[in-house]
């Protein structure tokens, strides 16, 4: 393989030069490739779609983790759905106040390969004593789970493939039952400019389950086509309306080092372009 062409869209796409191929395999569930690219470092792709690169992963992982964590202010338990590369886990582990972290990943091979070939993503987080890894279908897990968490983070692939069930109303409803009353759920929700349907669908499917719903965003270079959106659901509207001072204070006392996230970005990320505002008024 000399080049890797993403096949997300028929008439447009990004292509990477493969400077070194580390791994290629069709696992039980998905087609996994990990390679080196001069500009983006190690790149992982699943089923023709870029999942993460060493160079820009910090934007995605910091935003999907620290925004809800600091907005909540007292997270003790976290459930991560998917996230096999370990990036979310690494960011969650930075918070010393978090006591229990459960990660449910469908494909153990993704975890193993990422530990081996993308070690900087998890950066040792899989060895953290607070972490429990469950190999299971995330939808199945929340359906049968009798625990409740302060925060649920769904770090899934796109809705075509095994992650399909992680975009259903059933799944969101089951997640809601696994949330404490003040809890927050956030999900990876695609690049809205390219796939507005995904945002609309999530807005519709969150509606029956969460009193307060919204999206926030960040631009991740290798998720091409504009800003990436994250869905936000909670029964506590205050969590999304924290003042800059509050977030600033929590950020300082958490003593975490970030490269994209900061309190100003936190607040600004909830400002959405008009086309998303209109599409999500459902």
């Amino acid at each position, binding site marked *: *393989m000399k080049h890797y*062409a993403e*096949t*997300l*869209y*028929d*008439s447009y*796409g990004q292509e990477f030069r493969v400077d070194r191929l580390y791994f290629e395999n*069709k696992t039980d569930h*998905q*087609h996994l490739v990990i390679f080196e690219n001069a500009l983006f470092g190690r790149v992982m792709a699943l*089923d*023709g779609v870029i999942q993460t690169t060493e160079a820009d992963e910090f934007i995605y992982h910091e935003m999907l983790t620290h925004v809800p964590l600091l907005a909540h202010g007292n997270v003790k338990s976290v459930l991560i759905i998917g996230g096999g590369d370990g990036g979310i886990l690494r960011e969650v582990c930075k918070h010393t106040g978090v006591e229990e972290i459960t990660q449910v990943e469908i494909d153990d091979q993704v975890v193993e390969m990422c530990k081996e070939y993308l070690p900087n993503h998890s950066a040792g987080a899989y060895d953290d004593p607070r972490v429990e890894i469950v190999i299971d279908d995330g939808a199945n897990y929340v359906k049968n789970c009798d625990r409740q968490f302060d925060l649920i983070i769904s770090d899934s692939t796109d809705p*075509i*493939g095994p992650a399909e069930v992680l975009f259903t109303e059933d799944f969101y409803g089951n997640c809601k039952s696994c949330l404490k009353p003040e809890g927050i759920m956030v999900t990876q929700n695609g690049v809205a400019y*390219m*796939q*507005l*349907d995904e945002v609309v669908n999530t807005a519709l499917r969150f509606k029956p389950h969460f009193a307060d719903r919204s999206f926030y965003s960040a631009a991740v270079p290798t998720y091409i086509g504009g800003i990436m959106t994250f869905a936000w659901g909670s029964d506590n509207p205050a969590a999304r309306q924290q003042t800059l001072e509050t977030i600033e204070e929590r950020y300082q006392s958490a003593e975490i080092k970030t490269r994209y996230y900061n309190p100003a970005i936190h607040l600004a990320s909830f400002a959405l372009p008009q086309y998303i505002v209109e599409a999500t008024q459902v």
Partner: protein
Amino acid sequence: MKRLTVKTIREAAPYQQLVAEHGSPLLVLDCDLLTQQYKKLSSALPGVELFYAIKSLPHPAAIDTLHQLGASFDIATSGEIELLREQRAEPRHTIHTHPIKRDRDIRDALRFGCTTFVIDNIYELEKFVDYRHRVGLLVRVSFPNPDSPVDLSRKFGCRPDEVEMLLQKANALGIHVKGLSFHAGSQCPDASNHVRAIEACGEIIHRYNEQSSRSMAILDIGGGFPVEYVGDTAEVDIDRFCAPIRAALATLPEHLHIIAEPGRYLSAPSMEAVSRVMGKARRGEQVWYYLDDGLYGSYSGQLFDHALYPLTVFSDHDEREAAVIAGPTCDSIDVIAEDVELPSLNIGDLVIGHQMGAYTSASATDFNLFERATIVAINRDTESDSATNLLHLAYR
């Protein structure tokens, strides 16, 4: 081409060697011949991107050989996708051409990375609503061909006058139609139906691009490029066959990307069947020879594909007698050739079938649970096995 050729016993040697090594029945795939066919068609259709129709011979060595030559691939099922995946084919260079698909088929193709699909009706179009941001569609148009033994416009394809309605509907649903496709019929005696279809599609595309703010950029001229079977008098000269197609394509706007889906022309001449006489009987005036392969096996194309394959037997004697060559199963329909004049064959002798690459093993069955013929690929450029090279010389 003649139905039957008798060669000397000595000339059977390379086939005997293969049977000694791999058993019988065999299908011998010569990757060099496949390469030659690909190159001939490429130069007869300059500027046309060739998507090998995997269905004609879905074999890894064939895929690998064509992939290395830079061919693209026409897929119709998830099974074919798996085969391409194993051969590391580039998903960007594939199109899914089955006009009728289940949701799962669409998802499998998208997960593989194929984003081009073919539709020919409203119901099929509507299946793409959820995927509209990811795909580009071709509308398949029907151009019936009474001169083709395998008319591919009866079961699939919309009428030319239905295209506009489908395009409007697609636009309303936000689904991008990027071009048209047709299949002029397989094993076409001449290119007149291709030319008619190219002209009609060119006209539809032209009108649409004038009137609409969107544009169609692809014309897929399908397959249908012929090879010689028994009864065909003239040898197929592919360059001559394609001359009218080239002329018709030359009148189209330059920006139009032209693609084709050849199956038979590439695969048919690349494979020969090697079978053995497993029994004989004298019934009335005729001698019956029972081979270890037949109509339910590699010769299934005689039924499904309406093809008659040239046969070769080996004998050093001049006497001939009326004979029947039959397949091994219990069914009386399983007869490969009747009323042929054969030299006397012994049990264990070989019978060779030629031009047997396309729609042969692809449509073979497991009836009676007779083993299917083993496909042996020779002249793969990864091998330099002296025995297979010898055989290669003996073929010529």
